[in-house]
């Protein structure tokens, strides 16, 4: 299968992503990659994805038309509405589209990120080992930028077989984290209040980080010295000088000098990424051992 696809409408910050550009932190490049890795893999399995790359959409969704050829497309992540030539389909799902078909993804009831994967290889130049868009460093994807109406994507042979999709049970508890780097720099009172306090996802969120509203005032008035910078990883919970918590995400700054109270575990980071502004959450500490058991039980 090969196809030429034109973006008809792109919501803000829709980007090309693959598994990520790993191994370049020492060069000042964060790995990028999908905000919801599980959903990205699920869409890939539905599509029989022929390459690691697909489209990450934000809440506004995206419309595309097949200009020539045909390609199987799989979709997953959050809960969006999807139509082909006006006819509604289920989410997640997949279909084979041919020249002239219009796929329209519009806002749905849950989630921040949805994925489109393709049963053919996306023909784009590899940049430092990945197609992922890193908008901070302006690398990858289409010239390092978000997708826009009028962009054309070419897909070439290289289809895989659609596979079974893992449907992990949806977790609904606290977001679990590992105490770490600067935990002991916070007072015992802050440590104990942080666990179980209410935080709210603020509208200030993107692929770089998610700002939280500290509704119980856990960090209010806490003055913390700035520190020598250390490398940063996705899921790190850093506390700014004014007490605002920010969870650093896939396009994070490569190093950081603000205190980090902990790091969200791999098994919960996808779920956290999909929490919409206004959602309330609490944090719960777990051991590294426990986090590893969750990774083994939850992922393919």
């Amino acid at each position, binding site marked *: 299968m090969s196809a030429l696809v034109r973006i008809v409408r792109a919501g803000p910050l829709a980007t090309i992503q693959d598994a990520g550009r790993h191994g370049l932190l020492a*060069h000042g490049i964060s790995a990028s990659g999908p905000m919801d890795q599980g959903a990205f893999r699920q869409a890939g399995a539905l599509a029989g994805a022929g390459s690691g790359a697909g489209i990450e959409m934000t809440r506004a969704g995206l419309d595309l038309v097949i200009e020539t050829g045909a390609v199987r497309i799989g979709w997953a992540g959050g809960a969006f509405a999807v139509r082909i030539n006006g006819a509604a389909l289920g989410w997640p799902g997949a279909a084979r589209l041919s020249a002239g078909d219009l796929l329209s993804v519009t806002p749905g009831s849950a989630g921040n990120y949805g994925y489109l994967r393709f049963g053919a290889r996306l023909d784009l130049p590899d940049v430092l080992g990945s197609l992922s868009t890193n908008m901070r460093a302006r690398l990858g994807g289409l010239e390092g930028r978000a997708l826009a109406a009028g962009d054309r994507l070419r897909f070439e042979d290289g289809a895989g077989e659609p596979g079974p999709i893992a449907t992990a049970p949806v977790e609904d508890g606290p977001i679990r984290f590992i105490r770490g780097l600067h935990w002991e720099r916070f007072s015992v009172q802050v440590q104990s209040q942080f666990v179980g306090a209410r935080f709210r996802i603020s509208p200030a969120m993107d692929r770089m980080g998610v700002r939280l509203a500290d509704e119980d005032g856990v960090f209010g008035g806490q003055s913390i010295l700035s520190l020598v910078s250390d490398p940063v990883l996705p899921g790190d919970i850093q506390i700014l000088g004014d007490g605002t918590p920010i969870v650093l995400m896939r396009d994070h700054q490569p190093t950081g000098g603000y205190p980090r109270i902990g790091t969200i575990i791999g098994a919960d980071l996808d779920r956290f990424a999909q929490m919409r502004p206004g959602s309330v959450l609490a944090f719960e500490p777990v051991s590294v051992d426990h986090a590893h058991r969750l990774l083994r039980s939850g992922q393919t």
Partner: protein
Amino acid sequence: MIETSRSGREGLLIVPLGDCALLVRFGDSLEDGANRAAQALAAALDADPIAGVVEVVPSLVSVLLRYDPAATEPFRLAGEIALRLSRPAEKPAGSHRIGVRFDGPDLAEVAAALGLTIADFIARHCAAPLRVLATGFAPGFVYCGFHGADLTLPRRQQVRPLVSAGSVLFAAGQTAIAASDIPTGWHVIGQTDFRNFDAARLPPTRLQAGDLVSFEALA
């Protein structure tokens, strides 16, 4: 529950950074010994890699080890790290000459604050090679140090929202080179044509932590 271990070395800390990485920290403040210890560990890990470790990132006073949790776990890693701490490797340092046009907007203020003429400041700045203390703050960005106490100034009060790639920056006893457009609170003392980042090459940067950099004043 916190897998923190302290060994014989003063200030040494091995601490998890999430469930796929450990950070080995050699101190709480930026000083020469901690920085050299971090570089020595990174060199030892390069010379004798640990199974299951997928990325090693040396920083100012720490080394991050990213690992595959399906292949190893922190307790075993801490043992392997301790082995390599006990027999540090020396990596041959690369050396680089970097030409700088000392014409930055903060140059005069910096020289005055140090009680030097501009010519004296430039001469002292370039008198001896500096060591690359760390990379990674931004694409291709390097911190070089350390200058003596006679060339040590704090950062500016105000952050500049954007300085261009090639800006040569000065603060906290260090000189840094920006390889991309960044915000900074450091003093801008000059410009270089040298770009320590090329996305078409793998690896994309030329300067590594531990390399020596000789700055040369261009007319």
